[in-house]
């Protein structure tokens, strides 16, 4: 059948099972929006307040399920506004498709209005980017883009389509049978056997889980490995939803702001099985001192991660889920009473004393008690992100949405919207007053589309994380981190059409949260916390567990 480029784009989106796209219209995507408006394929469009919000929403939509998030933006500033979102998705291996309009082919290279080389600009922020010059190539390129986004280590892919190409026509042939064969890229069995032997012979094993475990849905195998081998599980920030914190083998997040029992276990272990981790500096601290007493087995689907940061004794590239399944099946039943005893001591040694009653810990635990195991929980970036990683009990994988790799302040509101749309559940966003001010405009998106998001602002009147670093490493000289905004977030929320509350104690928080659940749209609960609350204990950047600051 003869279709325009825009119609082909919609056909392929439908073919790929896309039911929602997030975006913002503009001159060079007019034709695409016009065809989307015809709604022939039932694809819903969520208009965001800003293209960055659309990119985070597509990311959040993707993280909570097995779907690819899709965003639409126009050329020039529309496209550049998506780059932070694409880089965020790239750093955390999230499959997202960005479709941008470009100036007409004849105008390319003339510095015309809203012209920029989007495909080149996004080189460092995407798994791949395409610039389509021929309407006949739209279908195949889009199918390729979805394949690249989903296969191997997932990631974002950008497709830039000139506005005139969107309007040209060509013959389109729908895919008769969708039978895409994702390469299995199996791990080498000899190496897996060696890994099993190393685990069997270890006396102090730790499984160090990253986002790869959550991505490939291998949580069950991690539990089995821990329970059978007597190993404990430590996590990167991206991996913490892989196991409930009530599991006896759970140690929590390791690293700079993590649970120190996890970091100490890693420093004392004789074997680390690193699964789906990329050894971020926030997780390892000083790299040359990481797990000095241990042999390291590194398993990852992306072989380019092997040896990049830590030269593991055994490097296994390939399908992580299959590798963990093999290990779980083949390891011996084992227990290590001495290791258990030491771990219990580590846990006691690093217990944090609370200072005031309305603490971040209590706020997070209270909200935790009011949600259920399927509630998507997003965070922004800063101290609150660390507190959520420590104190929220994630019982189900893919319920924790955070910018772990790129550390994008302002990520949370869009992500919570995307997660809410994908799951059709009320999502929760924990944010700080600094992060929330970056993208609170997206509250208007949740209002307009009636998306249930409850925003918990842990408001300490400043940029807490950087203020904490200034206190520690700049002799307490605080600069540009004391915001003194005097913003009433409850009133601001009401002004945008959302529900707004202020909470100064746990009772007010509970009342506000329960009331927010009675509405179908968004709510903002502004929780005033002391500026003395810090993300502690902390290992200084490039430090080790020996440099611990409490």
């Amino acid at each position, binding site marked *: 059948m003869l279709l325009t480029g825009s119609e082909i784009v919609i056909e392929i989106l439908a073919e790929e099972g896309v039911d929602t796209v997030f975006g913002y219209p503009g001159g060079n995507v007019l034709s695409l929006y016009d065809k989307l408006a015809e709604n022939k394929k039932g694809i819903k469009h969520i208009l965001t307040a800003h293209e960055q919000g659309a990119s985070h929403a597509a990311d959040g939509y993707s993280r909570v399920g097995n779907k690819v998030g899709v965003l639409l933006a126009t050329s020039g500033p529309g496209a550049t506004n998506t780059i932070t979102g694409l880089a965020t998705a790239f750093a955390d291996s999230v499959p997202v498709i960005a479709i941008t309009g470009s100036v007409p082919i004849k105008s390319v290279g003339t510095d015309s209005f809203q012209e920029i080389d989007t*495909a*080149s600009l996004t*080189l*460092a922020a995407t798994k791949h980017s395409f610039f389509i010059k021929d309407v006949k190539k739209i279908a195949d390129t889009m199918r390729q883009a979805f394949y*690249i986004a989903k296969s*191997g280590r997932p990631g974002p892919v950008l497709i830039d389509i000139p506005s005139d190409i969107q309007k040209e026509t060509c013959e389109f042939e729908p895919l008769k049978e969708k039978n895409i064969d994702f390469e299995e890229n199996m791990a080498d069995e000899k190496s897996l056997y060696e890994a099993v032997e190393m685990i069997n012979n270890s006396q102090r094993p730790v499984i160090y889980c990253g986002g790869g475990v959550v991505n490939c849905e291998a949580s069950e195998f991690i539990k089995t490995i821990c329970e059978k081998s007597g190993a404990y599980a430590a996590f990167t920030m991206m991996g913490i939803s892989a196991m409930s914190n009530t599991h006896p083998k759970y140690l929590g997040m390791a690293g700079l702001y993590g649970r120190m029992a996890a970091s100490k276990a890693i420093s004392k272990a004789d074997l680390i099985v690193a699964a789906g981790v990329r050894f971020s500096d926030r997780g390892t601290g000083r790299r040359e001192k990481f797990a000095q007493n241990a042999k390291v087995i590194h398993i990852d689907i992306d*072989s*380019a991660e092997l*040896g990049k940061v830590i030269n593991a004794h055994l490097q296994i590239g390939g399908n992580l889920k299959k590798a963990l399944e093999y290990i779980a099946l083949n390891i011996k039943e084992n227990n290590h009473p001495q290791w258990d005893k030491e771990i219990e001591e580590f846990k006691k040694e690093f217990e944090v004393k609370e200072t005031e009653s309305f603490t971040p810990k209590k706020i997070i635990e209270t909200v935790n008690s009011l949600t259920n195991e399927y509630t998507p929980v997003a965070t922004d970036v800063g101290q609150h992100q660390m507190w959520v990683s420590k104190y929220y009990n994630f019982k189900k994988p893919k319920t924790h949405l955070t910018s772990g790799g790129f550390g994008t302040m302002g990520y949370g509101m869009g992500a919570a919207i995307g997660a809410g749309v994908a799951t059709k559940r009320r999502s929760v966003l924990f944010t700080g007053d600094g992060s929330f001010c970056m993208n609170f405009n997206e509250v208007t998106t949740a209002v307009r589309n009636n998306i249930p998001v409850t925003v918990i602002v842990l408001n300490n009147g400043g940029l807490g994380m950087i203020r904490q670093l200034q206190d520690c490493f700049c002799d307490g000289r605080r600069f540009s981190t004391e915001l003194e905004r005097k913003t009433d977030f409850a009133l601001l929320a009401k002004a945008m059409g959302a529900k707004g509350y202020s909470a100064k104690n746990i009772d007010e928080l509970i009342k506000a949260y329960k009331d927010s659940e009675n509405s179908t749209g968004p709510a903002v609960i502004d929780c005033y916390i002391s500026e003395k609350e810090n993300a502690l204990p902390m290992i200084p950047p490039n430090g080790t567990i020996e440099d611990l600051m409490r």
Partner: protein
Amino acid sequence: MDTFKIYLTANNAGDLILRITAELHKRGFEIMAFNYQVNSENTASIGITASGETNKKEQILRQLNRLYDIKEAIAC
């Protein structure tokens, strides 16, 4: 720092040179010579002389090998 040669076979994609040079730059390598030869409409052979840390040579090959249009990257 060491100097070595990298040979690539790849799809002849418009932005491939950008992707390769960006990857080398990102990983701290300096390009000393770059030769791009189109073999047919669809394939290209690329020879690069680069300087960088020897212990990162294996790593950059892995990074180049995962680029979408690269078929094979080898070094000598």
